């Protein structure tokens, strides 16, 4: 009877019931939406942050220019060869000469003069490779790491920033001539030495300049022209000096001056040369693409920056990996690269033997080569810039990490724990938002929904004062009234839960549609190319961003949570409303109105 009564109360007053149920449903739906998005973010982050160990790596050893600021004190006792060439401090000048040379050489290969690409109109395609901030080091460091206790494997890799330039050699060139200008240089010469003075006097006497009279007659030369007995036969042929009377004398002086004085009188002539310069070198049809490449140890298919388990199609490197490459599936799809296609990189042809889906955020490349291939392409033979280390036991990771730091001073040693700390970006922000603000909003929304349900129940009871009074009058007990009201609100709760769950799915879709695309940024480990970036006026930092596809998920637990929230809301409304109803005086049955 009481269920029947409650059922009739709900169905005969459908609009009242629906208003209450929808109030709850909106609250529950919104909260489920928030929970769903939050779950989605957590899932996304979970995928994004899958620990290094999931790809068979516990520690990554790199060296960055900025990474090391001091030499570990124990390094002086380390006498192994790698530690000497591995040492790096904060400054380029403090790198040892081998490193310095390597870094300069590898980064300078990008400075190719466009004018040397060929005559105007020729098409050119170049691939330049630069290690950027991830400094290379000799591959022998790998064996040093391998020698450390508890290290299961140490796999080398060479990650590089590649710049692909293609286009036509521009026609607009500017040719101009330099040199051929004459310059008169006047400088106060140093005083003559005694020997020079004696030599000059002898010379002048030889030339027939009477020393005493000569010096005296010099002052009268203007009035005594042509009468000089010292005039050599025929006079000097070249002298066209303005002093008509003193021409013979000055020639004698020129001849007798010390050689160094004569130089000052010589004209300086700059050699002539023609310079052809390209105007505005990156002309419109030159395109520049940057991508990342990595050389891997193809003999370690189960550990390293890419493993066989990350192959989505195709196969691993063959016995002859020289002209084989693996391509990141995302990069392949955005650049329309397909499996088994041939790609020309730096004038060599490579076959795409497989597509991979790398999971190690911040340490992925677009194209993977055999290590020796990339070493020769990038003129970096014998050098690597990453070692991926597997440790026997997870507990020994920190121990091994410090051993590596000691053995290879200047090494940047990353463990999965330190990597996780460096994840940031909008994904992280959204997650923080979803968990912090989301929780607050969810609580407020839920409380509001509960409050609305309660107020609607109370107003419903107020409207039914006479009805409830009548029930009390005809002998219904207080607790019977209370449970009757509870029955009704639970009914509303059930309807609210059903509608709310439905709404929750809709709300999740709407919220995720409104969310901007999210990115996850991992700093400190990226295959950065900040020096190359500066050269190309690009902003490249040592961070790596991954675009994260958010798939909000409403799981069974979320649905149960939604249902529970609706029921709890209806229980709260039912208990408070029921108590209010049970407390009504039965005399309310005599009310004339209501």
């Amino acid at each position, binding site marked *: *009877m009481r269920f029947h*009564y409650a059922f009739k109360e709900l169905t005969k007053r459908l609009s009242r019931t629906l208003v209450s149920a929808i109030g709850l449903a909106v609250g529950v739906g919104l909260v489920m939406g928030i929970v769903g998005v939050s779950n989605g973010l957590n899932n996304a982050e979970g995928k994004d942050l899958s620990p290094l160990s999931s790809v068979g790596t516990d520690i990554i050893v790199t060296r960055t220019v900025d990474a090391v600021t001091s030499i570990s004190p124990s390094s002086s006792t380390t006498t192994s060869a790698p530690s000497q060439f591995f040492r790096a401090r904060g400054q380029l000048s403090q790198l040892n000469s081998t490193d310095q040379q390597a870094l300069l050489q590898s980064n300078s290969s990008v400075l190719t003069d466009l004018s040397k690409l060929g005559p105007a109109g020729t098409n050119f395609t170049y691939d330049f490779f630069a290690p950027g901030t991830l400094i290379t080091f000799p591959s022998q460091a790998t064996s040093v790491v391998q020698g450390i206790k508890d290290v299961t494997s140490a796999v080398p890799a060479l990650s590089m920033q590649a710049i692909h330039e293609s286009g036509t050699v521009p026609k607009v060139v500017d040719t101009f001539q330099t040199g051929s200008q004459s310059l008169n240089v006047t400088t106060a010469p140093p005083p003559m030495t005694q020997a020079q003075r004696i030599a000059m006097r002898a010379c002048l006497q030889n030339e027939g300049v009477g020393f005493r009279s000569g010096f005296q007659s010099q002052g009268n030369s203007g009035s005594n022209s042509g009468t000089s007995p010292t005039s050599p036969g025929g006079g000097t042929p070249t002298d066209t000096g303005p002093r008509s009377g003193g021409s013979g004398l000055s020639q004698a002086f020129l001849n007798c001056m010390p050689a160094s004085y004569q130089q000052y009188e010589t004209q300086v002539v700059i050699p002539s040369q023609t310079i052809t310069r390209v105007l505005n070198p990156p002309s419109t049809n030159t395109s520049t693409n940057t991508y990342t490449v990595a050389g891997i140890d193809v003999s370690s298919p189960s550990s390293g920056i890419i493993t066989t388990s990350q192959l989505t199609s195709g196969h691993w490197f063959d016995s002859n990996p020289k002209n084989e490459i693996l391509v990141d599936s995302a990069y392949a799809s955005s650049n329309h690269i397909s499996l088994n296609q041939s790609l020309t990189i730096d004038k060599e042809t490579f076959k795409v033997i497989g597509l991979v889906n790398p999971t190690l955020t911040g340490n992925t490349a677009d194209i993977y080569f055999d290590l020796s291939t990339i070493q020769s392409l990038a003129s970096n033979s014998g050098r690597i810039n990453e070692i991926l280390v597997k440790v026997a036991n997870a507990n020994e990771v920190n121990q091994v990490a410090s051993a590596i730091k000691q053995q290879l001073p200047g090494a940047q040693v990353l463990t999965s724990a330190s990597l996780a700390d460096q994840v940031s970006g909008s994904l992280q922000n959204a997650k923080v938002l979803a968990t912090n603000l989301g929780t607050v909003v969810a609580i407020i929304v839920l409380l509001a929904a509960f409050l609305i349900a309660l107020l609607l129940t109370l107003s419903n009871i107020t409207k039914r004062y006479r009805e409830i009074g009548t029930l009390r009058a*005809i*002998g*219904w007990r207080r607790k019977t009234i209370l449970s009757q009201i509870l029955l009704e609100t639970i009914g509303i709760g059930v309807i609210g839960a059903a509608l709310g769950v439905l709404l929750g799915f809709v709300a999740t879709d709407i919220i995720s549609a409104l969310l901007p695309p999210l990115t996850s940024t991992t700093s400190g480990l990226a295959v950065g190319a900040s020096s190359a970036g500066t050269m190309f006026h690009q902003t490249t930092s040592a961070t790596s961003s991954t675009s994260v596809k958010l798939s909000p998920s409403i799981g069974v637990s979320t649905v149960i949570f939604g249902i529970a929230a609706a029921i709890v809301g209806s229980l709260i409304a039912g208990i408070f409303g029921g108590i209010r109803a049970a407390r009504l005086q039965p005399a309310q*049955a005599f009310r*004339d109105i209501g």
Partner: protein
Amino acid sequence: MSLTESSNTLYELKNVERKYNFKSNEVLAIKDVSLEISEGELLILEGPSGSGKSTLLQMLGVLDLPTKGSISFLGESLDKASDKVRTKLRSLKIGFIFQQFNLIPTLSALDNVELAMVPTKAKKSAREARAKELLERVGLSHRLNHMPSKLSGGEQQRVAIARALANTPQVLIADEPTGNLDSESSRQVMDLLRGLMTQSERVTVIVATHDKDIAKYGTRTLKVKDGLLV
């Protein structure tokens, strides 16, 4: 009246006062009422609106307690009766009939009558049989599944009478039972109530009314004025 017919006393009221506190004013709805009501009476309480009839009925119906004086019902004092005790008394011994009929609008005639049997925990089949019997008794066997809104005022009041009789009460408390009815329906309802009193049910009926014409149905009429019996 012969001595053999002198019936058991159902109610005994001594100097009953009911004071309401209404917006910091004190309202003496019942000032001083002493009264005895015997079984088998059809008592009419007649008086103008606001004279205190309903207040008196609420105390007789054990819905309310006096602020002064005492009431005993079936030989038991109600002075210290708990809400639980009074609720049980109402459920089993007292039936109510209201001016506005007070049927549950979402339930059929049959359901409304059955609802009164919820506190008795009677079985569904027993409830239904009893409800049908009562609706037949009030002449509504053809209206069992009608909703209150589909019934006339007189029919609704007869459903209410059936509900009031559900648990075979000893007394029926009717507050202006004809207040919302036309004269024909009023006559039907009053005839029905008198029949309940005189026939096998032997129910004591107490009717409050402001309508002097109703007084003719009663075995006794008391006039109420300004909270006093006159």
